[in-house]
């Protein structure tokens, strides 16, 4: 078992800087999700780790072994880094059977024959593919191929496995099953897994810890799912992790109000660190209707989606997204055009964005 450490890693394609002095510690024996919007450099980072891209600065350690260091002039080729990789498009070799696919890495590492056999069987058992050992990949479904890819990664390394969007090509139901399985396998074997994705939902379900990268390739927050959901570190994380509404609040004659409009007062508490202006973020399902609220709005559009109503509400000229559960009291009674009072539950506050 081994953790992974990136220290000040930089990488650029030509003039285009992708990563700059990026540092991240992945602890031993856990699943770390590296989450970021597409183009943020997460795949580049993974390719630096497995040795397909060469960083321009920094060091990368797998356990206590240095696999790359600019200063020490170390750059171990991919085949000797001892990292198992699962690629987005599976990359299962179509001309080999499932069993041959799984044996290949161990053959390259020159393990004795009976051990290869034993480990391959065990790995296939882990991904529930033992019955398919003699099949060719073309005879398998996408999900099954991905399982083979995972088994192959398991035998390539018992220390570290990197997965690059491994479930993106599967359908929604299979995705969920695969996530549970990856989780289970990690529990059984205890390998460190670095899971790279742009899918917030998947990483929330899978990870022990999440590292969120912003579009510029900078680490925004590192924490557990609870930290990320209940205590987002900054505005980027809050906006990236789900749908959000933002309101501009300003202090007029000692009272916080919306849109510089003294007639619409905000009655909740605002942390002391903000003195004159602040941006308030609220999730659509944290906006509730309350007849008695002095903040009035008009329902412009209401779309029934089954479990909830998605509404667009006009609040003093601002379009606000509201989500109401179908089973809230009287949820079905509110029609397009009705006037409602709204209340904000659970708001978060960030420094006001320059207009």
């Amino acid at each position, binding site marked *: 078992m081994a953790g992974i450490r990136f220290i000040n890693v930089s990488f650029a394609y030509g003039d285009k800087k992708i990563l700059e002095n990026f540092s991240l510690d992945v602890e031993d024996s856990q699943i770390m999700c590296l989450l970021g919007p597409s183009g943020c450099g997460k795949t580049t980072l993974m390719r630096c780790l497995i040795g397909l891209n060469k960083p321009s600065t920094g060091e990368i350690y797998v356990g206590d072994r240095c696999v790359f260091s600019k200063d020490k002039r170390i750059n171990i080729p991919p085949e000797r880094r001892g990292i198992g990789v699962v690629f987005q498009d599976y990359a299962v070799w179509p001309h080999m059977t499932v069993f041959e696919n799984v044996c290949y890495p161990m053959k390259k590492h020159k393990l004795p024959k009976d051990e290869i056999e034993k480990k391959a069987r065990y790995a296939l058992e882990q991904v529930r593919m033992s019955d398919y050992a003699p099949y060719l990949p073309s005879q398998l479904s996408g999900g099954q191929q991905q399982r083979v890819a995972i088994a192959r990664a398991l035998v390539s390394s018992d220390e570290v496995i990197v997965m690059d969007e491994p479930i993106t090509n599967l359908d929604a139901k299979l995705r969920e099953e695969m996530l549970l399985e990856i989780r289970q396998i990690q529990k059984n074997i205890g390998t460190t897994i670095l899971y790279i994705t742009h899918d*917030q*939902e998947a990483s*929330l*379900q899978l990870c022990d810890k999440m590292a969120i990268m912003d579009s510029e390739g900078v680490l925004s927050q590192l924490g557990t*799912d*609870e930290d*990320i*959901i*209940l205590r987002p570190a900054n505005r980027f994380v809050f906006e990236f*992790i*789900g*749908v959000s509404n933002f309101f501009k609040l300003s202090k007029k004659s000692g009272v916080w109000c919306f849109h510089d409009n003294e007639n619409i007062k905000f009655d909740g508490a605002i942390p002391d660190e903000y003195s004159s202006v602040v941006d308030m973020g609220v*999730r*659509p*399902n*944290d906006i509730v209707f309350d007849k008695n609220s002095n903040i009035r709005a008009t329902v412009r*559009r209401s*779309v*029934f*989606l*089954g*479990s*909830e109503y998605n509404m667009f509400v006009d609040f003093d000229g601002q379009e606000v997204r509201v*989500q109401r*559960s*179908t*089973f809230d009291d009287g949820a*079905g009674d509110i029609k397009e055009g009705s006037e409602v009072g709204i209340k904000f*539950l*659970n708001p978060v506050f960030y420094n006001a964005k320059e207009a």
Partner: protein
Amino acid sequence: MEKNQVVLRHVTKRFTTRTMGTVTAVDDFNLEIKEGECFSFLGPSGCGKTTTLRMIAGFEDLSEGEIELCGRPVSIKSKNLYIPPEERDLGMVFQAFAVWPHMNIFDNVAFPLKIRKTPKREIEARVKEALKHCSLDGLEKLYPSELSGGQQQRIALARAIVTNPKVMLLDEPLSNLDPKLRETMRFEIKELQRQFGFTIIFVTHDQSEAMAISDRMMVCDMGKIMQIDTPENLYRKPNSRFVHNFLGESTFINVVLKDGKVFPKGDNSQAIDIEIPAGAEKEMVIATRPNAIKLTKNSGFMTHIEKRIFLTDKTEYLVQVGEQLVKIQTPHRVVFAPGETCGIEITSPGWYPPEDKETEAERARRQRF
């Protein structure tokens, strides 16, 4: 009284294949779709929704039954009456857009009018009007390959509305678009309907899309109509386990009735406080939705949080009820810790008999076909 715009009577379609024998793809469909209504055909693949639409359009022959469009019979099997698609005066939009790549946008939209030998000046005016309604004005000279998927689908829409048809057939028009665009296009289609007043038949396998767009919808499965109603009625009062399951995330709890009380299967110590409907058998399934179950600190059926999963817009809790794990969804602001004691309250669930193995086998057989 509103007129019926599309009427299907005993419409049946059978296919014979070498491997499967005869399959009844559409079994005795009876429908009355009203003028100006937005009506969806919803169901899993192989349920017969697309075949029905193609019969209405005139691309497929009927095995039995008759179809009437705007009061005019267009297919009557017993009288061998069949009117070809070009004479049915329909608008239709296909999943793969089907805009003609060798014509520019103007020519694409003008085609139906040119075929009808409309005077040139009128063509220009009407195409312009149609393009404006689909926010394509100014793009007349471009070719479809120069446009995005959403814009291509708008061309198809403009082409469909330019002849001012009374009935518009939409065959999964949004499923080739990305989710964000889907929402906008859905709104635009409704907007067009509001202005032109045509009747829409909308085919989809996506339940939330169907619910968002329809006035009424038909849920079908394996060639049979399961239920026809408004989206809210269907969602709140499905008449079968299939419809319940198909219309959104469901929570099914196996229960045992004993001494006039409802016990979760595998646990006789604590009863769930719900009313038992008439005619319930000893073993039943109660069905509800993950967000319809109320999670409380100390009332209702007492249990504990087995597992907590954060989703982007809600928190999902799994709680132990008898031998089952039951899924509950709440907003993020309702916070329970894993292992914490909690109570659940279920109100007016659906009651269904336990699972039907035969139906499942038939479904698997059809899916292979």
